[in-house]
């Protein structure tokens, strides 16, 4: 019912309404969460090994680097951009970090720091290209994809970095309260970014820039700064993911992370974000990510041959999103 907000409207009432709307839109009514639930339930029945603590931990460890880059990707996509470069930024960061770690066996954390820094530099260049030089994000980050991938080979002289001190594995393989460090890091990043997007003015700025860049500019938002920042963040998170990945296997290859960008973007879009910008949430991305990672794990557990896995994954993702779109249209 249309109602005039009368003078002295009870603020708490409208707050309660807001919360109800949020719950309805974001969680329970989100059919994608339901799809993930279905997949979880199916695998639990299909394989006795699926719903075990050990296996869930395995899923989380595998998900961690994707969660990092998907967070950054969410921000970029919210502004209406795209970051295709994360896959090869991971490779470049991992290679740079590994070389530094190998050269400084007494200060292995330097390896991780350098990986993050390398990612940040790549992201910052993306930011300059998009925000400063007005390149379409697709072109800018595609150019970075190619360049960073080439540099990853250059850094290692074409070969993977071998002979990294075993201690470098500590970052990704230390267990804390039963879960590996990367998993905790994933939780931390997800919570921080969810808060950032929901509760801070930075989040509002990102949504505004993606929702209507002209209006955002006229409202005094420094559009360039916002654009710049999301690419920098995405790059830094890709760098961190690269560092963790190479710490996990204590090696670094120029092909590390190849193709990860598509999985990350898929997670964001499956989670309900629009590639036109302005729509999407960290929570949605998490759901999308869980769908992909659970499928990867469950199909492996059921020993489905690799190529049938691709077929099933493709079909299921299309189906889940189709149902989601259908439900969303029915609601409106």
């Amino acid at each position, binding site marked *: 019912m249309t*109602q005039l907000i009368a*003078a002295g409207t009870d603020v708490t009432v409208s707050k309660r309404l807001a919360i109800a709307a949020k719950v309805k839109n974001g969680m329970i009514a989100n059919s994608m969460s339901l799809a993930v639930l279905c997949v979880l339930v199916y695998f639990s029945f299909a394989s006795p090994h699926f719903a075990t603590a050990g296996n869930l931990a395995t899923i989380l460890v595998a998900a961690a680097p994707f969660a990092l880059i998907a967070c950054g990707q969410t921000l970029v996509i919210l502004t209406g951009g795209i970051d295709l470069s994360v896959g090869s930024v991971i490779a470049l960061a991992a290679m740079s970090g590994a070389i530094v770690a190998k050269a400084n066996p007494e200060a292995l954390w330097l390896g991780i720091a350098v990986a993050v820094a390398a990612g940040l530099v790549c992201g910052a260049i993306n930011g300059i290209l998009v925000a400063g030089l007005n390149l379409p994000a697709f072109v800018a980050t595609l150019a970075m994809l190619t360049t960073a991938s080439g540099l990853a080979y250059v850094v290692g002289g074409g070969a993977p970095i071998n002979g990294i001190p075993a201690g470098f594995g500590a970052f990704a393989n230390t267990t804390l309260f039963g879960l590996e460090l990367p998993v905790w890091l994933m939780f931390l990043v997800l919570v921080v970014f969810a808060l950032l997007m929901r509760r801070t003015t930075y989040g509002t700025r990102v949504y*505004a820039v993606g*929702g209507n860049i002209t*209006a955002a500019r006229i409202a005094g938002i420094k559009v360039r700064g916002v654009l710049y920042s999301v690419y920098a963040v995405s790059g830094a998170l890709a760098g961190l993911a690269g560092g963790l990945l190479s710490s996990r296997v204590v090696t670094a290859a120029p092909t590390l992370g190849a193709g990860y960008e598509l999985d990350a973007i898929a997670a964001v879009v499956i989670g309900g974000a629009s590639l036109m910008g302005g729509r999407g949430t960290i929570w949605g991305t998490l759901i999308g990510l869980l769908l992909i990672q659970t499928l990867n794990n469950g199909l492996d557990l059921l020993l489905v041959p690799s190529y049938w896995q691709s077929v099933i994954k493709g079909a299921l993702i299309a189906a889940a999103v189709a149902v989601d779109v259908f439900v969303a249209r029915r609601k409106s």
Partner: protein
Amino acid sequence: MQLHSTQEYPDRSPDAPVVECRDVHKAFGHVSVLKGVDLALRSGTVTALVGENGAGKSTLMKIIAGQEAPSAGEIRVGEKTLRAASVREAREAGIAIVPQELAPIPDMTIYENLFLGRELKGALGLLDRSAMIAEAGRLLREFELVVDPRRPMRELSLAVQQIVEIIKSTSTGCDVLLLDEPTSAISEVEVARLYRIIDRLRERGVAMIYTTHKMEEIRAVADRVVVLRDGNLIEDRPAGEITDDQIVTAMIGRDLDEIFPEIPPPRDEAPRLLVADIEVEGFGTPVSFSVRPGEIVALAGLVGAGRTELIETIMGIRRRRRGSVTVSGRAVRRNDPAAAIGAHMAIVPEDRQVAGLVPRLSILENGILPRLSRFSVGGWKRTALARSRVTDVMNDMRLRSASLDQPVAALSGGNQQKVVLGRWLTDRVDVLLLDEPTRGVDVGARSQIYRIIADLASSGMAIVMASSDLPEVLGLAHRVLVMRRGRIERDISLATTTATAAQEEIFSHAAGFHASPR
């Protein structure tokens, strides 16, 4: 001059309705917008559809045009019931619409937009572009619009886009034409040209609905007045049998006293806003003027006079190559809207869709957008504070909405306009720049907005208002700057001139009859 050279129009009995809405209901979720509307349109008549913002006018038109599905009820053309939400069927039945929120294809040229869906073809069924260009040029000239039909739509001002949209719909040979606030962005000269076209269509037997918030327009075109209130059709009478006051009362459910409030004289202080020697992009003559605290200065002129550009340049949205803008004695950094906001300037842009709102964000979030730092501590949003302040100002603006968490896209056009103005008022504003501030706003809300503007002026704000609405200019401003080709032709003080004299002077200077020799 004839719009349609080849189309044959069958004889119709003048009384048979061309199109008929039967018991049309519409609800968005739980919000009921139309509650059983019956409306029959007859050939060769113009029906003025009026009502407050959010009354459901646009919704009804969209349902007739097949853009929305009714929740219940039907649209009939002749003996046939149209399929719900089928633009195609509506089109084939001869229904055309000029939508309230324009839908141009920005990357296409004017002529491509004009001929969209009915392209002219030559040999082999290939497009005949030169024929389309020539014909488009003719249609534009008929509207006295001197613009190359090969220009892309995105380069044109909102006004020109609206004219193109009007030409597009009126030249299709439709039987039913729905005009949803077709004059919201254009000035009186163009409006007069639209009247001529409407008269011609009426003679040809086209049935029209015309939505507007301006009484003069109702009087000029309507044969019949239909009033919607809260989704109900509560008045349906021949135009000659209803007075202006009756229309207003039917619309807003109460009597409206004087539309224009008492405007106190400006304070006798140093200028609050000082614009010196700035060039309006694309024109090249420097412009200077000043506004004192409490003063309302109107910018008048024809479409394309450069008012929008001037305002945008002052706010730092357009590039300023030279000159200065000073607020309360302090120079404002150029080309930086954030600096302008920091200097307590505020703007209500002409095109709220493009420049004003982030449609997917909620009213609350749009409400705090220009004031993010005020509603945050260290970047953390103070949601409770924001909610209470935005609720306050939106109540002052008499915003109609289900809740502050509704996306602004779901508001009616007039209510969106209130959000665009209201959101600045959560904090101090010294200089308020208004570009067509009451575009699409209903009379009730308009008088409310005028009152707010008057209050803001009396509190010491300097207000610059570009408006194509002459009564608004005469009723609100202390001073009128008449613009033409990017320069100020004339500075008229309304305190010392009578309304009629001022009106005449504005017209003649805007049209260039007094053009100063260069």
